[in-house]
C-alpha cells in the first residue's frame, strides 16, 4: 500500500504525458510526406511544435531529438518517485559519455560536444569532464570506477577501443540488474533486454566469424539465458539457435529475424522485433495504476519515438523509398 501512494501521482501525470506522444496516424503521415521538410511539418503540429520552429536546418534534426530527450528527462526527474528507477534508466547515458571521453583520451583529443549527452545521465557531464581533466575517478560510482580502472590497466598492454565498449557495457548491465533488484518489474525488463542483446551479439559474432573466446568476452552477464548456452551453441549452425529458443519468449524474434538474415543477409528485422518485444513487454504492463510500469513505459516510449523520428528523417533526407523506411520502423507505444 505504501507503493500506491508513492506512485499514484507520477503514474497519473505520466498518463497525461502519454497523450502527447505521437500516435500511429502521425507517424504514418510523416512516412507519407514528400521529403524531409514536409515530414517535419507533421511534427510541427505535435508536442514538438516549438522545437521545430527553432530548427533552422532540416539536416540538424538531431538537435531536436537531443533537445527533446533532455527535456523529458529533466521533467521526469522532478516527479518520478523512486530514485533508483531513474538512475537505472539514465545509466546508459553515463556509460555513453564515459565511452566517448575514454576514447577521446585514447586519441589524445577533445571529445566533440555533439556526441555527448550533457544533461541526461545521472552524472553531470561537467563533473565527468573534470574527473578526466584531473585523472581522478574516485567520485565515480564504484561499478564505473572499477570498469575505468580495468580499461586503464588493459590499455597500456593493448589499446583497443572495442574493449572500452565491451567492459563498460558489461558493467552497465551488471549495475542495472543490481539496481533493479528491489523493483521486480524493472528487473524483468532488464533481464529481457540483456537476453536480447546477448542473442543478437551471439548471432553477430557468428556472422563476423570471431572466435569463441571473443564471444565469452562480449556476452553480458545480466540475462537469464546463461553464457554457457551460447558457448555450447557456438559450433552449431545458426538454425539450432532457433530450435533451442523455440519455447522462450524470444522465439518469434529469433525465427523471423534469422529468416531474414538467411534471405537477405541482414539483421534489420531482428533488431526491429527485439525493440518491439521490449516495448510490448512494457506496454502490456503499463495499465498498472500504482507501480513503476507506466513510468518505465513512458521513458521507453519517448526513446522509441525519437528513434522513429530519426529513422523517418534520415530516410527522407536521403530519399529512401518508404518501404525501406517502414521495414525499420518500430511499433508505436500509445
Amino acid at each position: 500500500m505504501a507503493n500506491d501512494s508513492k506512485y499514484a501521482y507520477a503514474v497519473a501525470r505520466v498518463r497525461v504525458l502519454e497523450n502527447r506522444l505521437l500516435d500511429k496516424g502521425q507517424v504514418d503521415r510523416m512516412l507519407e510526406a514528400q521529403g524531409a521538410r514536409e515530414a517535419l511539418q507533421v511534427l510541427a503540429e505535435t508536442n514538438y511544435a516549438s522545437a521545430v520552429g527553432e530548427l533552422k536546418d532540416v539536416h540538424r534534426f538531431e538537435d531536436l531529438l537531443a533537445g527533446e530527450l533532455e527535456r523529458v528527462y529533466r521533467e521526469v526527474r522532478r516527479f518520478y518517485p523512486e530514485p533508483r528507477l531513474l538512475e537505472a534508466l539514465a545509466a546508459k547515458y553515463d556509460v555513453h559519455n564515459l565511452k566517448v571521453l575514454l576514447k577521446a583520451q585514447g586519441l589524445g583529443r577533445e571529445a566533440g560536444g555533439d556526441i555527448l549527452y550533457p544533461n541526461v545521465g545521472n552524472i553531470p557531464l561537467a563533473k565527468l569532464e573534470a574527473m578526466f581533466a584531473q585523472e581522478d575517478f574516485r567520485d565515480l560510482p564504484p561499478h564505473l570506477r572499477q570498469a575505468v580502472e580495468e580499461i586503464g590497466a588493459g590499455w597500456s598492454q593493448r589499446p583497443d577501443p572495442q574493449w572500452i565498449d565491451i567492459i563498460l557495457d558489461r558493467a552497465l548491465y551488471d549495475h542495472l540488474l543490481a539496481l533493479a533488484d528491489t523493483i521486480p518489474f524493472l528487473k524483468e525488463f532488464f533481464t529481457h533486454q540483456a537476453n536480447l542483446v546477448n542473442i543478437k551479439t551471439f548471432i553477430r559474432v557468428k556472422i563476423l566469424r570471431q572466435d569463441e573466446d571473443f564471444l565469452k568476452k562480449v556476452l553480458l552477464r545480466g540475462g537469464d539465458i546463461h553464457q554457457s548456452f551460447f558457448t555450447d551453441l557456438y559450433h552449431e549452425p545458426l538454425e539450432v539457435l532457433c530450435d533451442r529458443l523455440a519455447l522462450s519468449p524470444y522465439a518469434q524474434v529469433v525465427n523471423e529475424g534469422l529468416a531474414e538474415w538467411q534471405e537477405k543477409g541482414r539483421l534489420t528485422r531482428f533488431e526491429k522485433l527485439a525493440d518491439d518485444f521490449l516495448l510490448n513487454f512494457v506496454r502490456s504492463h503499463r495499465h498498472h495504476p500504482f507501480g513503476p510500469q507506466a513510468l518505465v513505459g513512458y521513458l521507453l516510449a519517448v526513446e522509441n519515438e525519437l528513434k522513429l523520428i530519426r529513422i523517418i528523417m534520415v530516410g527522407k533526407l536521403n530519399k529512401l523509398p518508404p518501404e525501406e523506411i517502414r521495414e525499420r520502423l518500430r511499433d508505436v507505444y500509445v
Partner: protein
Amino acid sequence: MFESMTGIVLALLGAALAVGLAGIGSAIGVGLVGQSASGVVSEDPDKFGQTLLLQALPGTQGIYGLLTGFLIMQRTGVVGGNLLNLTMEQGWAVFMAAMPVAIVGLLSAIAQGRAAAAGVGLIAKRPEELGKAIIFAVMVETYAVLALLASILLLFGITF
C-alpha cells in the same frame, strides 16, 4: 455500577471505531485519488472538475461511519443527555453492530480509492469516459452501503 459502566463504554468504543476506522479508510482513499488527480492536473489543469468528482467517491465511507456513530450516540442517549444504563450484553451488541461499517468502511474506502485513482488515469487518457470511470469506482460503494445497512439494522434490532 461497574458493570453498567462497561456496557456504555463498549457501546461508545463501537461508535468511535465506526467513525474512526471508516474515516481513516476514507482519508487514505481520498488522499490516494488526490495524488493521482494532482498528477493529472499538473499537466492538464482543465481536468480539475472531473478528477474532483472521482476524488470525492471514497469519502462516503467516512460519512457512513459518522452516521453509524451518531445513531449509536442517539440510541444510547449520549446525544439526548439521558444516558442509558447498558448491561454488558447490550454494550457488546452495540459494539458488534458498529463493526460492519467500521471494518468494511476502512477496507472498501481504500479499495475504492485505488479504483478511483485508476479512473483518474483513465480520464487522463479519455476524458469522455468519465462516466465509466465513476461506475468502476462506485461498484465498490455497494459493499460499503451493505455494511451500513447491516449496521443500522443491527442497531435498530437491539432493544434497551
